[in-house]
């Protein structure tokens, strides 16, 4: 049994006096796809944001590989190189083309060789099915295309784990599918993924393990088939009845 890639223990976090996470613990193994579901405001985004140190947490611990995310002298670049994140809002850099968006961080942050990064970036553009759109600016792409560029942009950092925070929530219904297909392919290729989503059917199909969060705790978790068909907690039942 190898050590889990991500190990979270008793994580707590408050914004001001409002507790948002009240003791969250779980492990993510390499190659696993984890679904996180739960009502809005239950702390799903905050968990992901704590994992890549976008927000500091109050107590508990997070380890990503051997990186201690809570350490005062945390090497943020090392962490973020391992952990890619895609957000709900499309947040490509609007002054750069799609290909440049994908190439920027490896070249500017990791100082990798530009020609090598470009080869990788072009391959990733093909992978997310955007061959031919390399020279397009974000403003010229649909929401779904922008999200796929954002996924390619994260992947170009060659992360070990990808965090997806409701990446389809702001998309037109027609383009949701193309983004979900891309994420599914990644998960099937063995990329470790943490997927926060409102798309229950997607979570059921893609995730190896699903966590249901409510008011800052993990209420229930299990393999998706069991969790969706036979939830044991009242809160999980009530939530699933509302969204399914």
């Amino acid at each position: 049994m190898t050590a889990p890639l991500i190990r979270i223990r008793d994580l707590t976090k408050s914004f001001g006096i409002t507790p948002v996470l009240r003791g969250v613990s779980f492990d993510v193994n390499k190659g696993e796809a984890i679904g996180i579901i739960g009502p809005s405001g239950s702390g799903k985004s905050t968990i992901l944001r704590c994992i890549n140190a976008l927000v500091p947490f109050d107590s508990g611990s997070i380890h990503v590989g051997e990186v201690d995310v809570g350490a005062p002298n945390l090497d943020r670049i090392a962490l973020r190189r391992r952990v890619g994140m895609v957000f709900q809002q499309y947040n490509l850099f609007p002054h750069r083309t799609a290909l440049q968006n994908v190439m920027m961080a490896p070249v500017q942050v990791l100082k990798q060789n530009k020609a090598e990064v470009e080869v990788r970036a072009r391959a990733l553009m093909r992978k997310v099915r955007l061959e031919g759109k390399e020279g397009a600016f974000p403003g010229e792409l649909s929401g779904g295309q922008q999200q796929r560029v954002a996924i390619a942009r994260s992947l170009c950092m060659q992360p070990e784990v990808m965090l997806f925070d409701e990446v389809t929530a702001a998309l037109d219904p027609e383009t949701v599918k193309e983004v979900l297909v891309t994420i599914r392919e990644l998960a099937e290729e063995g990329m470790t993924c943490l997927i926060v989503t409102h798309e229950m059917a997607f979570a059921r199909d893609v995730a190896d393990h699903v966590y249901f969060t409510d008011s800052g705790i993990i209420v229930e978790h299990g393999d998706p088939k069991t969790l969706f068909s036979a939830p044991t907690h009242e809160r999980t039942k009530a939530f699933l009845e509302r969204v399914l």
Partner: protein
Amino acid sequence: MDVVADFFRTLNATTGWNFSIFHDAFDARRFWSAFWVTVQLAGISVLFSVIIGIAGAFVQSMRFAPLRWLINGYIAFFRNTPPLVQMYFFFFALGAITPTARDDIGMDVPIVSSFVWALVALSFFAGAFNVEIFRSGIEAIPRATVEAAESLGYSKLKAYIFIILPLAFRICLPSLNNNLVNLIKTTTLAYAIGVPEMLYVANQIWSDTLNVVEMMNVLLILYIGLVSLLVWMMHRWEKAMRMPGYGA
């Protein structure tokens, strides 16, 4: 060359319009060197004021409060006092306490010339507004864009250089334009501390040659030319920085 001089000499003889700077060698020499002083004053202070704006806006975005207060104090001082008073302040107040050197005929001359003081005053004056302008541009950038940069491993400084600043520039270019146009016009205040710039020398010429109206016209046209040149360059730059699909 002589054709131009002959034309203006004839114009003077026949109509009394005396554009001495085109046919009188002495007036021509002092006027065009003044024009060059104005161009330098404008060009260098535009450059420094933009640098001050970029650096000041970055410092303002930092967590360290004392530095932020310092920048806020600087902005308050330069925004709320007349630029002419600032010019006097730099030249007389600071000029009095900076060291002097003995020149070859034994006179005490200040190390910092009035030209340099004018440059400093103008750069800080326009720089204060530029800090505010860049800050408003930075504040208009969606939080999500900055977060994306952070999550890709960008440090604060790198995010500022590669993402925040290029976007802020695009957002605040119209106000930056206004402020820099204003700065070019404000270079005339260097007159007050004896910098031989265009207005100062034009004044000397029309006192000597009694051609106030002619020199006024020359001045106005040259300032229009300088401002147009700046506006044209900024426009070119704006086009080069266009973000297709973003309307602006």
